[in-house]
């Protein structure tokens, strides 16, 4: 009886030690792996594959005041973006805003050119390399694809709007109303439906998709196509050192929206 009790206590003691030690041993092993995989984050990694990006030449939009509006209307027409007629419900994939709004807090001194304030500046989803919206989405409805585009699967969107809160650029809009509906005068919110592209439904968030559907068939994004003649917008692969966009970025000084947010946008502005 006595010896049996001794055995029991020995086994119990060993089990307790193993139980306490195993998780911490596992943790150290897993941590080592995490550190190894995070190694590529600090600029040392060689970029592979495509990463679509865009350069927006603000000066060219000032020279041609109608151009920005034309880009907006073309995009919104082909993507069936509804116009609810009021700012509160507004859906925007690409829009025109003032310098102070697009680059808030970036005026390091007060003696900046007056003209800056009246410049129409085109803004759209930045397709960040480190997108906060993707991290916020609880259903993985929004995701980052291999070509650098932050895409959305509207089937999965549950309309929680976490992504809207997470996006530092206000690039996401929520459908408070049914986009297929009609206003008080019986006018449909989508003026002319593009039969090639779906609409959205009430209760989902939507945003610019960098024209994935056009890229897939070898076309450039619709806004870039509109602005192609004046080269106000240049679209291309940031990872290809010989692409037009890489050449421009090498030779011209550009700024990005809220670089301090650490999102690494794919959009660059020439002011």
């Amino acid at each position: 009886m006595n010896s049996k009790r001794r055995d029991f206590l020995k086994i119990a003691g060993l089990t307790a030690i193993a139980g306490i030690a195993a998780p911490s041993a596992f943790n150290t092993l897993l941590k080592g792996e995490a550190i190894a995989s995070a190694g590529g984050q600090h600029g040392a990694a060689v970029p592979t594959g495509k990463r679509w990006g865009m350069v927006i030449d603000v000066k060219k939009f000032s020279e041609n005041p109608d151009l920005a509006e034309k880009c907006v209307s073309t995009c919104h027409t082909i993507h069936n973006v509804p116009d609810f007629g009021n700012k509160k419900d507004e859906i925007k994939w690409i829009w025109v805003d003032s310098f102070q709004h697009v680059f808030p807090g970036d005026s390091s001194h007060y003696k900046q050119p007056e003209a800056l304030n009246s410049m129409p500046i085109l803004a759209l989803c930045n397709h960040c390399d480190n997108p906060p919206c993707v991290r916020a989405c609880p259903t993985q409805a929004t995701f980052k694809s291999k070509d650098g585009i932050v895409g959305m699967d509207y089937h999965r969107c549950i309309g929680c709007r976490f992504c809207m809160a997470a996006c530092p650029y206000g690039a996401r809009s929520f459908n408070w109303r049914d986009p297929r509906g009609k206003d008080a005068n019986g006018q449909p919110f989508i003026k002319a439906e593009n039969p090639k592209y779906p609409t959205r439904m009430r209760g989902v968030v939507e945003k610019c998709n960098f024209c994935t559907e056009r890229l897939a068939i070898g076309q450039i994004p619709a806004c870039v196509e509109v602005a192609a003649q004046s080269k106000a917008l240049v679209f291309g692969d940031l990872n290809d050192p010989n692409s037009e966009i890489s050449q421009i970025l090498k030779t011209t000084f550009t700024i990005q929206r809220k670089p301090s947010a650490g999102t690494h946008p794919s959009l660059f502005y020439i002011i």
Partner: protein
Amino acid sequence: MYGKGRIIPALILFLGLVTSPMWYKSGDAGKMPKPEKPKDYTECVAPTQYMRTSHMVLLNEWRDDILREGGPRIGKTANGTEYVRSLQNGCMKCHSDKKKFCDDCHNYASVKPYCWDCHLQPKEAM
């Protein structure tokens, strides 16, 4: 048994009433749906039996593959005909009448897919 003169007929009447929907439709499965097949095309993207049971699975696979994996937008049938892997631009190209093709079966099976909340159906059928 006390009061069996009333209880047993009442029980029979009750059972009869409760099961009356079954008697009413007994031996009749209702009018089978006959979805209208496209006249100009004879081959679908997958065998008929698979399409009949699993077209919704196929649509989800297309969507996830194209959107997330960057998969091809063009597919090929067994006989080599190219098609667009898309509900709105692919399926509806041949099956251009949603009412006569989709709705016929969906109404019969009492399923209400939400495809058309966002996707646009061909104009002439609306």
